[in-house]
């Protein structure tokens, strides 16, 4: 019984650690583009500078040679604005 339990737990830990390392964002994240109607622009970081909202369109593309291939489909590119550091409250101006 202990052997089976140990096998399950070891598998779960190894798969989660291995999976997380294997699926960590690589250069691809920075190599994504969106179509703005006239041309392809760098997309930025998902969740930080843009989100993909559900729709039948293509949100982001990857570049292969001179071609742009749909990457994240069934969504629309929506820019958002936030920094990667927690926002500090602005100091109050004295009268």
């Amino acid at each position: 019984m202990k052997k089976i339990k140990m096998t399950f737990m070891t598998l779960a830990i190894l798969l989660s650690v291995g999976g997380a390392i294997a699926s960590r964002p690589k250069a691809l994240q920075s190599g994504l583009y969106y179509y703005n109607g006239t041309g392809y622009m760098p997309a930025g970081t998902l969740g930080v500078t843009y989100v993909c909202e559900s729709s039948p369109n293509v949100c982001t593309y990857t570049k292969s040679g001179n071609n742009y291939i749909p990457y994240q489909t069934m969504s629309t590119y929506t820019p958002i604005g936030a920094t990667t550091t927690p926002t500090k409250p602005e100091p109050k101006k004295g009268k």
Partner: protein
Amino acid sequence: MSKKQVTLECVCALLILLFLYASISKFLDFKTFVGQMNNQPLPNSWTPFLVWSIPLLEISISAALLFEYTRLIGLYASLVLMVAFTVYTGLVLFHFFAYVPCSCGGVISKLTWPEHFVLNITYVSLSILGIILQRRKYFKTIIFLNIKHNLV
């Protein structure tokens, strides 16, 4: 090993897999995670607390699920956390917020909100199943120990 025990081990392994994977993914791309947290419809002053507490809580739950003595606590904690995530996903699905980027780690962030909702519901069900099986096992052990004690 009975079927129920194997099921319980599977449930715990699946919960550990999810929580450990999600927390490690967040730490591996911490800068993005902070940015995503800033875009949540929550006060930005909470971000420094949330970016550490959520992954650490997930790791703590995984650790609790590993050991027999803390497993029931781990299962209850995972149920509470998964219900909280499910309610949040439900609010996003019903357009309570203008836009919400997912603060999930790894491949989970590629899921759409309806897919997320299904995943969360599945994990809520798994947590409930785990609690039922673990409680039965726990009470069986107590009854067995009582009988043994009375015989001695």
